[in-house]
């Protein structure tokens, strides 16, 4: 039979090849047809330290990370010591026979016998293959693809180690407690949040990205860079975040869909550029992958602590929209929407994620690329009324945007308050007209809000409300509480600004208890909801220890919270 669901954690020091085997295993699982949610945890160092790659595998679609472990794969003794208490009583630990661990749940293998230290991870992979009951061909093919570009000697060496360890495992009477139930193979992609953002952006017409490296956002730009030569993108590592956003704004002005990706600390430097985009009405997509602050905070951990910062970033008043994808699929689709809206409303548009989502791999159904449209940049010169005015006053607040050099009309943009033709002005009557014109765009942005998603019972005893990457954990927590006999529901926001009470007020009013769930210490989203609805929402479950929201955490807090 095998298990419908399993939570495996692979742990070890950085430099032991942990990510390599974890990635190969994850891909082999996806190719085999399983669903999964990966939660990566690492320390801000390149060698040593304690790093984990947790894969929650299931035969059904799943959306949340978990805490309790079924299977611990320990590349060192320290991993067992760190995680012993999280392992289920009937769980399993795989480790090298060198480690004299007396835990009843241990399965020990002579990894040293198969390979020198540097290649031990391949031996681990082979034994894992056997324990999980995966198709050996699929796993080995994945291993080969992974090292594909490397030299033939490397492939041959991997083959030998893999076979030796696999044979060893086949000849043992290994426990079958972590064997997975078989599933039909799938054509799924294996993608993490950052990769999905990059692909979504390209599919929507992105052509330019400038960045300055900052965890956990960097891999967005690196993914774009990997695609750049094939797909005709320019990805430039700027001298700093200030340059990055200004470059993107320059590229956008000259006619190219552009984005920047950073984390809170880098975004802090970009803020003047946000205001510049607001004033010059230049389209730009700004992705902020959150990590715990203030300042440099916990560089490699997760948090949802920058929401109010993004909401208010930039001096002066101008409209904006903030998306907060809840799944990898939404990372793709909402990035597309954000880029398209940026162009349509000639505004800075934000996509807010976090380390958990950024690094979380999932099995994702392939996208229907042919059916997706790209943003069309600028108006056509034939459509504009003459003389051409970049900031012509319109009912929608959106003025015709021409691109410099693509017609004989001159395109004049200014960070100072300006007249309709783009030139500096200190005429205070014009000032009022321009402020109002810019703000009129918010009506359009409000009309295109992605609705919050309600799942669960009508008139529930408990309604959990949350946003962004915490949604998966909340939905699963609500489902578990329902199994315990409560009427429950979850309300999940994938767009957190603008907030339109008419779209969700009835849900809040229809529940006996509303419990707000967020990955920050001060309930930032709760405050926003209260401000927009006039409600008081005192019940909160908050997490700010650097780890992602999990169903266990929510239920634990719920029980002790006395809601």
């Amino acid at each position: 039979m095998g298990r419908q669901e399993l939570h495996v954690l692979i742990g070890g020091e950085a430099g032991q090849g942990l990510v390599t085997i974890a990635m190969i295993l994850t891909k082999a699982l996806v190719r085999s047809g399983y669903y999964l949610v990966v939660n990566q945890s690492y320390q801000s160092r390149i060698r040593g330290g304690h790093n984990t790659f947790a894969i929650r595998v299931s035969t059904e679609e799943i959306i949340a990370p978990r805490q309790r472990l079924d299977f611990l794969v320990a590349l060192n003794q320290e991993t067992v010591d760190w995680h012993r208490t999280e392992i289920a009583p009937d769980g399993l630990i795989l480790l090298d026979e060198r480690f004299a661990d007396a835990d009843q749940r241990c399965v020990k293998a002579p990894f040293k016998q198969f390979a020198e230290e540097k290649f031990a991870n391949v031996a681990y992979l082979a034994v894992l293959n056997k324990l999980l009951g995966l198709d050996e061909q699929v796993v080995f093919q994945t291993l080969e693809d992974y090292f594909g570009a490397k030299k033939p000697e490397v492939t041959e060496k991997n083959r030998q180690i893999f076979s030796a360890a696999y044979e060893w495992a086949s000849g043992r009477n290994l426990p079958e407690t972590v064997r997975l139930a078989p599933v039909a193979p799938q054509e799924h992609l294996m993608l993490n949040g950052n990769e999905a953002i990059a692909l979504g952006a390209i599919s929507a017409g992105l052509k330019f990205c400038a960045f300055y490296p900052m965890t956990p956002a960097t891999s967005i730009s690196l993914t774009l860079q990997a695609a750049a030569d094939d797909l005709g993108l320019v990805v430039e590592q700027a001298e700093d975040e200030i340059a990055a956003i200004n470059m993107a704004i320059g590229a956008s002005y000259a006619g190219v869909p552009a984005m920047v990706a950073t984390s809170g600390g880098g975004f802090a430097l970009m803020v003047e550029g946000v205001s510049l985009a607001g004033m010059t009405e230049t389209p730009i997509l700004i992705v902020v992958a959150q990590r715990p602050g203030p300042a440099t905070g916990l560089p490699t951990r997760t948090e949802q602590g920058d929401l109010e910062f993004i909401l208010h970033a930039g001096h002066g008043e101008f409209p904006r929209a903030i998306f907060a994808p809840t799944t990898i699929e939404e990372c793709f689709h909402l990035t597309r929407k954000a880029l398209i809206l940026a162009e349509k409303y000639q505004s800075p548009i934000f996509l807010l994620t976090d380390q958990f989502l950024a690094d979380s791999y999932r099995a994702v159904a392939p996208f229907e690329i042919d059916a997706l449209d790209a943003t069309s940049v600028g108006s056509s010169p034939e459509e504009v009324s003459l003389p051409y005015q970049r900031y012509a006053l319109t009912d929608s607040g959106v003025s015709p945007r021409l691109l410099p050099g693509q017609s004989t009309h001159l395109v004049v943009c200014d960070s100072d308050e300006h007249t309709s033709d783009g030139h500096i002005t200190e005429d205070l009557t014009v000032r009022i007209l321009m402020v109002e014109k810019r703000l009129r765009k918010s009506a359009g942005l409000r009309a295109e809000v992605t609705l919050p998603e309600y799942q669960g019972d009508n008139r529930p005893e408990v309604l959990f409300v949350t946003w962004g990457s915490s949604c998966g954990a909340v939905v699963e927590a609500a489902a578990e509480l329902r199994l315990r006999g409560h009427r429950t529901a979850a309300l999940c926001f994938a767009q957190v600004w603008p907030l339109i009470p008419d779209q969700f007020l009835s849900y809040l009013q229809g529940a006996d208890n509303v419990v707000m769930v967020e990955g920050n210490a001060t309930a930032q989203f709760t405050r926003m909801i209260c401000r927009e609805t006039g409600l008081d929402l005192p019940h909160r479950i908050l997490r700010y220890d650097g780890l992602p929201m999990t169903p266990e955490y929510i239920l634990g807090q719920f029980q002790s919270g006395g809601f």
Partner: protein
Amino acid sequence: MLSESIYGNYETAWCPGCGNFRILAALKKALVESNLTPHEVIFVSGIGQAAKTPHYLNANLFNGLHGRSLPVATGCRLANHQMPVIVETGDGCTYGEGGNHFLAAIRRNINITLLVHNNQVYGLTKGQASPTSDEGFITKAQPHGVYAAAFNPIAVAVALHAGFVARSFAGFEDHLTEMIKQAISHPGFALVDILQPCVSFNKVNTFAWYKNRCYRLPETYDPTDWSAAILKANEWGDQIPLGVISKNSRPPFEAHFDCLGHTPLARQQVDKAKLKAFITHYR
């Protein structure tokens, strides 16, 4: 034939007698002599009196933030590498607030013409010291005189192997026109540091002060000799050299991007077949 009138005639917000007027006149001439019509050029500027210059021209213009014109210009140029991009800025804007961008733009050697109106003072904010103010220069903000050593933009640019480094003076309109023209036609990063008297706030470095010191580099001077240029770049005081101080033929930044070969990025579409092929890496 183009004439300067095509670039318009605007009322300015500058003080009467300011060096900026002469720079604007030389710029118009250089544009016309370079055979550029207004819609074929992009101007980018920051904030300051100098940065207002493109507002007094018929031109495509992105007037951004203080110190940030070079990154914006870099983005413009990458998006449309077939259009000349000219940055108009002050010494405070580019050497102070935007110092890091100045270094990075030189290193990239992106094909941008950078015209710095160097009046050795902050004009728009009323007379504080700028990075190029001479040591000891007294202002309300520096009542005991500037303590810091003056920034030497020419020496820094030469040291970093900038593609084209020139100095001119607002008082020598023909020389300035010539330098701007050469800078525009240089295929790479081109700096023209323009000595510009500020009649309101710099009572030391006046028209006469510059005029008495500036001299033109002799015909025999070879700007491709980097070591000679380093020495020349450090000449400042009683004798101030004008002309092309250094130049080389480093390939421009844009040339490294295959995708910019023919069609500007701004006219390219997503290639869905290629995107689909790329996505197969994630299978």
